[in-house]
């Protein structure tokens, strides 16, 4: 078990797996999170045009924060986990209004 995991890990290391994973998490995960948040805002009790604009205005803060988070935490796995933890409640809110 450990040897397989070890071999996978060293293979990943060879092509900079964790780094590539982090870059993907920052670029695409960060954008997805920001986009999700901009939709989730619609669930708040305010008029639709105001909610749309609030979501757009806030989305870039969220994107930047997500990118910083992804590169600040100890491992790529944690980076993804953090993004998913935030995405879960946002998805619920977004799902309720889409």
């Amino acid at each position: 078990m450990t040897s397989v995991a070890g071999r996978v890990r060293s293979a990943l290391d060879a092509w900079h797996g964790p780094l590539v994973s982090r870059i993907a998490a920052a670029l695409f995960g960060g954008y997805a999170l920001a986009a999700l948040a901009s939709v989730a805002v619609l669930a708040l009790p305010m008029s639709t045009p105001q909610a749309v604009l609030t979501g757009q205005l806030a989305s870039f803060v969220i994107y930047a924060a997500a990118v910083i988070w992804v590169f600040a935490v100890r491992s790529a796995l944690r980076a993804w986990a953090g993004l998913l933890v935030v995405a879960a409640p946002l998805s619920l809110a977004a799902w309720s209004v889409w």
Partner: protein
Amino acid sequence: MSDLHTWVGLLLGWVLYAMFLTGTVSYFKDELSQWMRPELPAQSGVPDQAEVAQRVADELVALVPGSPQWSLRLTDARNNSVYAFWRTAGAAPGQRAFGEGNFDPTTGQKVSSRATLGGDFFYRFHFQFHYMPVVWGRWIAGIAAMFMLVAIVSGVITHKKIFVDFFTFRWGKGQRSWLDAHNALSVFGLPFHAMITYTGLVTLMALYMPWGQQAGIKTAAERQQLNAELSAFIQPGKPSGEAAPLASIEDMVRHAQERWGRDGVGRVTATHPGDAAARVAVARGDGGRVSMSPQYLEFEGTTGKLLAVHEGVGPAAETRGVLYALHLGRFSDTVTRWLYFLVSLAGTAMVGTGLVMWTVKRRQKLPDPARPHIGFHVVERLNIASIAGLSVAMAAFLWANRLLPETLADRANWEIHSFFIVWALTLLHGVLRPAKKAWVEQLWLATALLALLPVLNAATTQRPLWRSLADGDWVFIGMDLMCWALAALHAVLAVRTLRHQPKTRPARKPAPETVKQAVSKPANGAVLREG
């Protein structure tokens, strides 16, 4: 975090440098446009907006009969011509055709000046570039802005001793000095850089983050409601098909002047002029209020009856309006605009020093400085063309404005082609010459082009500096003096580059203390270990 800052900064640094510099000069885009249309006389005072609006509206009725919509940006303290924009009639449904032009406020006629995009070229290039679909350009600009935002935040995290760095400056110490300069420039303008980057994203946020709008806005009525929060462009409804002339535009603008002051009107927009269903919106200008959110009076086109007063939008829309206005700085008086210009120029220098630092830092570590590896070579050459070369190309654009024959077909575009041809030549020159020689030669070339521009202006127009001084023509005086100031700046850079002796042996301390400290923190070191 330090690596993130370096790579994010480098990858889009060249694009950002061009965006920063062209954006910086865009704070004077109206003045540049005046300078590039020297046939239009200097404006001694702002003409009465109501009369000007009526004059140009009459001209448009004759020029584009049956247009479903036209809009005028009236003259103000910084504009001596009226910019008009219109939809042309008879376009197939779903297909839109547009036209635009500048008009003389005193005659109402289309301006008889050389064809030029004026300062609008740098302004448009700043966020959508050229030679590519507008939307692609805007996406590239948005990605660059997002990288910039990340570079700023990670830069702040990297430089924990930010205020100590600010007061630390070591002249003539090679890489140390570049880093110190970069830090000082960044910290000095930090609030501005963060603001300008974020607000830049806000100006095009509907393009970058359309998802909330797609999810929430489902009907045409909702879309109209959202648009009304964002702009004073009233949407053309259906024409009645019954012909009826427009009422007095002059009276409508007078009404608005009573509300916002004599020079307070920005735009006049008419939908279906000449039809019984015509509507006219008179919108407030940007001057003197720190928001771009729409304020306008809506009139019935055929009677001139005031239908509605729109003077407030929702809190989120107002927030957007303020952020948008902060980016454009159009609210500002002359002093504020110069401050904007100077801090923005410091921002340009921040990006420039950051780019140069990449090569300065790595040159010391090169195994054989005489034969650097290909990556170093590419970065070095791109730096030359994108920093020194851009100055040369921008100056060349202004030279083209004075030198291209007025009868040349497609003249406005040839001014732009000249800019890009010269820019491409600087890249070629940068590749062919040794790096240091290329830097110095291009900086001297930029110095010469800028220093001689007032001379060229004197030789090719009726408005040389001595006459501008006698007439109190501040746009032309300012332009001439600015050219000399910028020429002096480039001369200083050229001399300093010439005298610069790069340390070619490996440095004793490859990593400067601040960077080393940041890297040694476990959280920040993780990326390095993985990479």
